[in-house]
């Protein structure tokens, strides 16, 4: 007998449901690591105005603002697919889960574009 247990069957066809699950997990993992980072960074904001401005200068630079739009996207995906999961779990969403996914992700995408526009307006192009 040939034993088979594996982390994931990468040759299995991915339907909308499994894509949603995979991306939801990856987004969730990214967010928990971001949350750890976030709590540490905010803590460093409490060491007086000078330290605050130092940290903010870095956070308002171009690279971090671009990362922030990415973060906003990951959050929106996780949040809106999360809404889909709650609808599936409690409100018979299973019967229309593919349509739900498409509609909710479309809404999330619009919010992402809007939010990213606002975030990028905050870029401090020159330090100081």
């Amino acid at each position, binding site marked *: 007998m040939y034993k088979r*247990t594996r982390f994931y069957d990468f040759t*299995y066809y991915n339907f909308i449901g499994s894509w949603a699950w995979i991306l939801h997990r990856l987004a969730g993992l990214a967010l928990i690591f971001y949350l750890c980072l976030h709590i540490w960074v905010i803590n460093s904001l409490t060491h007086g105005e000078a330290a605050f401005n130092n940290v903010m200068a870095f956070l308002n630079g171009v690279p971090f603002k671009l990362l922030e739009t990415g973060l906003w996207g990951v959050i929106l995906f996780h949040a809106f697919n999360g809404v889909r999961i709650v609808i599936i779990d409690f409100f018979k969403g299973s019967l229309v889960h593919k349509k739900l996914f498409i509609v909710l992700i479309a809404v999330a995408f619009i919010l992402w574009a809007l939010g990213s526009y606002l975030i990028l307006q905050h870029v401090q192009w020159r330090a100081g």
Partner: protein
Amino acid sequence: MAMIDISVKILRYQPGKDEKPHWQVFNIAVEDESTILDVLNEIHWQHDGTLAYRRSCRSSICGSCAMKVNGRNVLACETPIHRFGRKLKIEPLSGFDIIKDLVVDLDPFFAKLKRIRPYLILDKPAPDKEFVQSPEQLEQIGESTLCILCAACSAACPSSWPNSEYLGPAALLKAYRFIFDSRDDGADQRIEIVNDKNGVWRCHTIFNCVEACPKKIKITEYLSRLKVKVVENSL
């Protein structure tokens, strides 16, 4: 009807001979209206008699011939080859140990099914004649009784692949089928079994089971109702 040439890639494993499974390609001519099972029969009868696979009723009711074709779990007997074009890739069901070629060890699958006690449990004496059920009560169980135990769902579930202890969609669906049956009194025992770290909580509503089910049972919907029932019971 016309003959067409197709290329069939099959995952072979001969116990005692092969250390691990390997691919073998058969280039054969078959009728264009063939099913996957017809193709396997053609290979078995005309080309290589050592090819092992399960089949019985060839009318999608016995549940013997579930296998993975081009990345999806299907019943070989009911699936026409034109669904996949002229290149077929046939593998045994994922997540189960391989006995030989396309034949997998389904003992764990049936052991899990037994675990949830797939039979009517009665506290009261059985009625003399029939067990009356209203249409509404029957509606509760719905399609969940249609399962043919082919294991296509459990083998398609990403929660089953890394965890051989997970009860899997088939057993959980059977649990639903009895827990929500108005005639049954065994709900509490079954909920106890299902409310386990390897029970219903390993279901992450991925829907691979629904995509794989040859009977098109809305498994995830029933498992969602089951989860709510378990939560209500433990509050």
